[in-house]
């Protein structure tokens, strides 16, 4: 009967071990995707062989011999052309061995030969078969490995190109089967069931498989929640590639950055801090790329095809402003990151010439301000390019007194609105500008409207317009949260309902000041990342040209406005503009103020961190700070807890040794029991101290515990005054404690 029971136990453990192998297989499967491992099937077969040998439980030398021979056989067939076990075969093997030993001694890991690496890997497989044999068969503890498998797969799925969709399902099924069988086998052992008949077994297995099948099907078919945490990969391996803004929409979380496709705006995004380019400039300012003119209700498109024309590199004129503007001639150097995926030139307002690779011919579309080169090679020379520009400042007087007669070609393009634009948008716009007389006043009213009326800057939880919904309408009236696209698009649309020509502009904010040394002292280097991608508004003033405005909460105006000395000021708002012109100096301390009160001066403060105004970059930094601090604290606390017996003992040893009262003896003895208990040597309550001491001594192979205990008994059961006893025994006690902890 016992034989039979053993046999059935062996069957169960073999089945569990088989599951162990299948799980281990899941560890090997991704290797050819994520590493340069070749001939994966050979390794899998070898692993299977090792597992198979282990389950047969041969004598250890036999199993080692078999595994070693097959290992050599694999090495031979994969790497060595000489006849197996011939003299030259051994020579090759020896050469490999000596070479790799040297390599290891010199720590030049990458020079190890494939043969050697394969041997190491095969040995690892061999060891794994032992480890899993121990876990699954001897200890009957399978959960840990199952958990590790899941962790492994999820990590691979997240951080590598390996797709673990099928692997997770397989692992789930195998784990459930393994745990089911394991619990049956445990039950059989516990209840000491000698023989289980087939009918009873079916009673076990049918529910097991029904549960596995149904949970798998339900799990597979049920809808999956979107990731609750943003994809962590960009934080680790951020690249500018595939970065895109409004690249198709949908509810999927996007990454910040510059993208071509703006036809469907909305949706949340995560901040991608990977750098795009570095710019050495005299003053920080926005970088323009292009504008778009056609609002569809969902996003922006171009109403006309790009009309790219060759222009003389030395004389590029985008004709955005009237010549009469006051300008400042400046130079900037722009250098792109190697992996930046940007095919258009970024430039500041007032661009006059681009100097870089002489062979590059730039193509300019005046309407949108798009500048390209053939195949984007303008940034491939590694040097970047130098830009000369006449940076404009806008006179408030000119803007206020500017005529409102727009040329036809302007109003044709830049007053376009979708036919089904909700009425309430224009009603709102009318309402906002009801007190304003001039175009400039109206524009400023609309620009500042978002600052006061409950609109908030958010990158998370930003809605995408649903069927029949208008992007601007949704933002203005329903959600009231969004990022630059929401603010700028809304401003453009509202202006257009007031017949003010406006367009939507894309580019980058000025970026973060970088540590790098600028080519000359006047210049400061800024690093512009995908997180600095931005959109804003340009409004047409007939006598001035296209003037940029910044409606997004927390951002300040991209250009300077000034007031001519002769001008009369009778408007509160313009009074503020005066201040703004004065405060064009860069000032770190402005950050908080300008974020809190968006009506404070424009100018190129450092604080523009692209898409994360309102302090949210600090927020996320501080969140990460908290997370790191929390993790450090948790790790520290758990380390302290895990090693508590070591340091608590050190402290207690000195404390108890100082004490000479009887109680100290008892406390010390009880602490020793506690330490031993912690080490898994628990005293049962029906065990006398002597019995327990004998058990401990047997394990420690000494008689210290018995000696100590016999002594302690005199205190405990003889009621002898024990202060001197204790001081005599404290050495022995300390030894015992140390021995228990070692």
């Amino acid at each position, binding site marked *: 009967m016992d034989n039979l029971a053993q046999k059935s136990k062996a069957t169960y453990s073999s089945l569990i071990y088989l599951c162990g192998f299948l799980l281990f297989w899941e560890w090997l499967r991704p290797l050819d995707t994520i590493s340069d491992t070749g001939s994966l099937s050979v390794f899998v077969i070898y692993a299977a062989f090792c597992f198979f040998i282990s389950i047969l439980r041969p004598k250890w030398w036999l199993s080692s011999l078999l595994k070693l021979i097959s290992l050599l056989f694999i090495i031979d067939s994969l790497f060595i052309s000489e006849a197996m076990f011939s003299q030259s075969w051994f020579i090759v093997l020896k050469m490999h061995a000596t070479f790799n030993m040297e390599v290891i001694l010199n720590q030049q890991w990458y020079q190890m030969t494939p043969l050697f690496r394969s041997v190491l890997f095969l040995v690892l497989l061999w060891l794994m078969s032992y480890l899993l044999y121990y876990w699954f068969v001897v200890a009957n503890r399978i959960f840990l490995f199952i958990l590790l498998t899941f962790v492994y797969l999820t990590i691979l799925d997240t951080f590598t190109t390996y797709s673990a969709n099928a692997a997770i399902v397989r692992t789930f099924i195998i784990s459930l089967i393994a745990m089911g069988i394991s619990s049956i086998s445990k039950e059989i052992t516990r209840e000491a069931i000698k023989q289980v008949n087939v009918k009873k077994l079916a009673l076990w297995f049918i529910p097991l498989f029904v549960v596995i099948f149904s949970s798998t099907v339900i799990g597979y078919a049920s809808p999956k929640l979107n990731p609750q945490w943003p994809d962590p990969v960009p934080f680790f391996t951020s690249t500018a590639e595939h970065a895109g803004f409004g690249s198709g929409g949908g509810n999927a979380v996007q990454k910040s950055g510059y993208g071509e496709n703006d036809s469907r705006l909305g949706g949340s995004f995560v901040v991608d801090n990977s750098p795009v380019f570095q710019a050495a400039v005299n003053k920080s300012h926005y970088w323009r790329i292009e504008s778009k003119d056609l609002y569809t209700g969902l996003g922006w498109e171009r109403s006309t095809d790009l009309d790219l024309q060759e222009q003389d590199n030395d004389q590029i004129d985008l004709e955005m402003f009237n010549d009469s503007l006051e300008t400042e001639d400046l130079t900037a150097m722009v250098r792109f990151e190697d992996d930046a995926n940007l095919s258009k030139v970024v430039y500041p307002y007032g661009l006059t010439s681009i100097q870089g690779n002489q062979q590059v011919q730039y193509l300019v579309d005046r309407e949108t301000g798009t500048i390209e080169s053939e195949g984007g090679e303008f940034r491939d020379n590694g040097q970047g390019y130098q830009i000369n520009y006449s940076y404009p400042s806008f006179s408030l007087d000119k803007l206020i007194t500017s005529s409102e007669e727009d040329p036809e070609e302007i109003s044709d393009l830049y007053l376009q609105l979708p036919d089904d634009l909700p009425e309430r948008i224009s009603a709102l716009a009318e309402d906002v500008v009801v007190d304003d007389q001039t175009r400039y006043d109206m524009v400023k009213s609309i620009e500042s409207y978002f600052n006061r009326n409950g609109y908030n800057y958010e990158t998370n939880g930003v809605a995408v317009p649903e069927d029949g919904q208008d992007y601007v309408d949704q933002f203005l009236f329903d959600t009231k949260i969004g990022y630059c696209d929401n603010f700028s698009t809304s401003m453009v649309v509202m202006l257009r309902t007031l017949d003010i020509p406006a367009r939507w502009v894309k580019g980058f904010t000025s970026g973060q000041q970088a540590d790098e040394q600028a080519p000359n002292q006047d210049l400061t280097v800024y690093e512009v990342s995908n997180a600095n991608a931005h959109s804003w508004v340009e409004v047409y003033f007939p006598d001035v040209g296209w003037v940029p405005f910044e409606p997004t909460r927390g951002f300040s105006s991209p250009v300077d406005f000034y007031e001519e000395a002769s001008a009369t000021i009778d408007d509160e708002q313009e009074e503020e503009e005066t201040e703004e012109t004065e405060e064009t100096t860069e000032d770190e301390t402005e950050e908080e103020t300008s974020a809190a009160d968006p009506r404070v001066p424009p100018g190129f403060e450092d604080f523009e961190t692209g898409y994360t105004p309102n302090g949210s970059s600090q927020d996320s930094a501080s969140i990460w700070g908290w997370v790191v601090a929390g993790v450090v604290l948790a790790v520290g606390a758990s380390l302290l807890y895990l090693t508590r017996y070591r340091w608590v003992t050190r402290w207690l040893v000195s404390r108890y040794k100082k004490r000479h009262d*009887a*109680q100290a003896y*008892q406390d010390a003895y*009880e602490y020793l029991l506690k330490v031993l208990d912690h080490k898994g040597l628990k005293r049962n*309550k*029906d*065990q*006398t*101290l*002597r*019995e327990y001491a*004998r058990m401990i001594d047997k394990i420690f192979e000494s008689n210290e515990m018995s000696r100590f205990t016999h002594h302690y*008994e*005199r*205190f*405990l*059961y*003889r*009621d002898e005054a024990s202060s001197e006893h204790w001081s005599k025994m404290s050495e022995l006690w300390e030894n015992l404690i140390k021995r228990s902890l070692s």
Partner: protein
Amino acid sequence: MDRMTQQTYLYNSKVGKVLKNINKVMIGKDEAATLSLVALLAEGHVLLEDVPGVGKTMLVRTLAKSLDCEFKRIQFTPDLLPSDVTGVSIYNPKELQFEFRGGPILGDVVLADEINRTSPKTQSSLLEAMEEMSVTVDGKTIDLKKPFFVMATQNPIEYEGTYPLPEAQLDRFILKLKMGYPNPEQELEMLDRTSKEHPIHQVEAVMSKDELVEAQLQVREVFIDQNVKQYIVQLVTATRDHDSVYLGVSPRGSIALMKAAKAYAYIHDRDYVIPDDVKYLAPFVLTHRIILNSEAKFDGVSTDHVIEELLEKVAIPVRREFR
């Protein structure tokens, strides 16, 4: 049976010699010998329950001889009369007087063989002497000399024509033990030893009667701590609350356990009792003092089981309370 051998302590020098003496004659009977000594030193009596021929008589005889005591044996038969035990007054025609002839009970070490074969009347005459330390014959009370030690035997397999001892009388034995068969090696050695002359003839007294009485007095002085006493009480009261038990251990049982524990500590040259003593002795002292209820008997529960269970349940005292 081997629990004894686990206890590797020093023996009290005198008692150790006695045990050594017994060991010369008896093979592999350390435990029975030690327990007999425990009973002797605790001024109690032993009930030996075992099949014939395992050395009960030999044990008692060796014990008596080692202690320089007078050994008497009473073979209990159905027709034995109380006067056969206690003794009888006989008319002396010469002196014209009744003269008391003492029975075997007046010996120092008495073996009462197959005590359950005789009538209750005769049994009670023995048991009365054990308890009262005196016998009454023809209205005259005669005190028994010290030491006085009775080892009664009982055959567990033949029940026909027997008079099982009532509970009240079993209670008077401080402990009940079994001898058991020797193992093959021990039996082989026994054959070797007894092939020529029985070794009992070479046994010499190693302890005088006075020394024994002195030792008995010393045993009374062995210290027993409050928390060990509490342990005894907990054990005993636990027998009364056990589900399988119809009648638990009497307070006399507690006293017996304490006395035995003291003697056991004394044998191991210790002047204080530790819980180990109590735990070791509990099965020998307590099993014959409890009566199982009919369900437990029907389920095949034995008194040994019950005591074992209680020993697991009752916690060993390992703390001293400080005030």
